[in-house]
């Protein structure tokens, strides 16, 4: 049978290509790229750190890279790992990156550590899962990576054995990651863009290499790799929307003033724009609030120049005022009934917030999202983080409020404060718990 033979041939070719590709992928998996690239000016720490040692610089860089977010369990020992990442195909746990020799990275050489960051492989050359953002860290300078290592090695060691990952087949086959790497990992060090101001380049280094903003904010393709053409255009992960932060005026942050952007990054709140919560509040709490004003300014400069994308929620304020207060004589719906009971003490029935600006709802994208993605998360789980000595806090309502109630409340919030038609049903809320 001709067709049969042709088909057989095709399969054979595919198998052969696959074998060759696999061999190639495995061969290059531990290759870290150019390890002799000179440290660009955009890398390193701000001039404030000029006379500080490697440990202090490393601390600053580790914060800018937000290592702690993934490597520290809330309330647990710093960098001892164990944080769970629930993925569609199972759960993986972050490793201990303290200098403990048995369970941490105490016996890793400088080269081991650099290779991990640049190539995404462990000391033994085994591929790490790309929940570890080596696709971003690969752009870091060797000096910066070693400063981070110096900092980590300056801290108390913690004996904390790794928790075994719980992944289904074929995701539990680590070698398959090498295939993914061969396709999606570009082991390139950061290259400043000629002709751009230094602040822009510094911002780019902070945003793309250290801060790895794109890991959350850049849409991913079918293979879960960041789609470079849509950088920072917004993505949904772990039940939260990381919003479009391109310079698009409608859908991104193009309308935000420099001050608003800087406030949001450094304090987690910009008046009339929004308050960080969920994963973004962790980024502010663990990382961004520690950046120097020059670095915050550099990030702002960079974000201003990000190619506009029109994905996501339109930010055009269709005047919350026209939404107005609840009509005085209408019978209250369930959502309003709940809001004026449990929520308006802080948010006020006009959504302006009172005791703290952080409680303002009007103008935020969270209330303009008809799916109320982030609003539902915040209502279910609350929000709690630390800005300096200040505790930013909202209680959680998930335990005592039904799916029906949370759906109605969320729809009320987006309609009342965002002028949107909420689309939530109780069963959708159930799925987001």
């Amino acid at each position, binding site marked *: 049978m001709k067709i049969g033979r042709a088909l057989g041939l095709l399969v054979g070719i595919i198998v052969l290509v696959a074998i060759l590709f696999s061999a190639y992928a495995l061969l290059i998996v531990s290759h870290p790229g150019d390890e002799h690239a000179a440290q660009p000016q955009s890398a390193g720490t701000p001039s404030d750190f000029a006379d500080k040692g490697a440990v202090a610089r490393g601390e600053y860089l580790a914060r800018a890279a937000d290592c702690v977010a993934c490597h520290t369990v809330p309330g647990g020992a710093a960098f001892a790992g164990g944080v769970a990442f629930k993925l569609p195909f199972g759960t993986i746990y972050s490793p201990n990156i303290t200098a403990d020799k048995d369970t941490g990275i105490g016996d890793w050489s400088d080269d081991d550590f650099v290779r991990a960051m640049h190539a995404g492989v462990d000391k033994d050359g085994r591929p790490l899962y790309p929940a570890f953002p080596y696709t971003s860290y690969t752009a870091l300078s060797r000096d910066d990576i070693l400063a981070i290592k110096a900092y980590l090695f300056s801290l108390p060691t913690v004996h904390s054995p790794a928790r075994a990952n719980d992944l289904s087949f074929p995701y539990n086959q680590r070698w398959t990651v090498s295939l993914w790497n061969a396709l999606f990992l570009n082991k390139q060090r950061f290259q400043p863009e000629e002709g751009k101001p230094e602040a822009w380049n510094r911002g780019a280094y902070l945003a793309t290499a250290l801060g790895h903003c794109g890991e959350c904010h850049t849409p991913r393709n079918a293979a879960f790799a960041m789609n470079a053409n849509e950088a920072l255009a917004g993505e949904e992960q772990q039940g939260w929307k990381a919003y479009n932060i391109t310079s698009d005026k409608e859908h991104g942050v193009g309308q935000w003033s420099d001050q608003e952007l800087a406030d949001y990054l450094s304090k987690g709140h910009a008046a009339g724009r929004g308050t960080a919560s969920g994963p973004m509040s962790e980024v502010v709490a663990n990382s961004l609030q520690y950046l120097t004003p020059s670095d915050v300014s550099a990030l702002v400069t960079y974000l201003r120049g990000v190619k506009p994308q029109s994905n996501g929620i339109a930010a055009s304020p269709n005047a919350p005022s026209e939404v107005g207060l*609840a009509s005085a004589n*209408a019978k*209250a719906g369930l959502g309003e009934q709940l809001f*004026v*009971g449990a929520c*308006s003490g802080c948010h006020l029935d006009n959504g302006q917030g*009172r*005791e703290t600006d952080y409680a303002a709802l009007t103008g935020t994208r969270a209330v303009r999202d008809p799916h109320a993605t982030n609003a539902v998360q915040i209502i279910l789980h609350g929000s709690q983080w630390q800005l300096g000595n200040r505790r930013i806090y909202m*209680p959680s309502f998930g335990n005592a409020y039904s799916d029906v109630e949370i759906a109605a409340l969320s729809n009320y919030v987006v309609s009342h404060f965002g002028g949107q038609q909420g689309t939530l049903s109780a069963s959708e809320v159930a799925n987001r718990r």
Partner: protein
Amino acid sequence: MLSLLVNGQSYSVDAPDDMPLLWVLRDIIGLTGTKFGCGMAQCGACTVHLDGQSVRSCVMPASGAVGKKITTIEGIGATEIGKRVQQAWLGIEVAQCGYCQTGQIMSATALLAQKPTPSDADIDIAMSGNLCRCGTYVRIRAAIKQAATGQATLPQTIA
């Protein structure tokens, strides 16, 4: 030092900026009519007015009240509306244990200042953030209406 204006009197208090107004009032200034119930703006027992608007003083940093007129239950009777509300409260005997009532009265007074003749829906919006475990809600609603209209719809207590 924070400079606070409470019920028309100025106080200079030595308190951290983030200390909630509630505790400055109760533990430093000594005005204990404002109550602690939950500490997270879920119950309204701590309601006071800042420039006439009700706030939950348990989550309001005292520093945020600097430069504003703070009115507490101890001072609300000096306002015309506050006095009317207190009289209506006694007229139909709203209070039971009374612990939440100072906050209820502050919320009710702020409502009437904004809406002199509130509808049931207005009362729902303004008052549902104030919890009462004794369950005086039916009378709270009636007392607000009585304070608003001056007309008694329920039997009045004999003083």
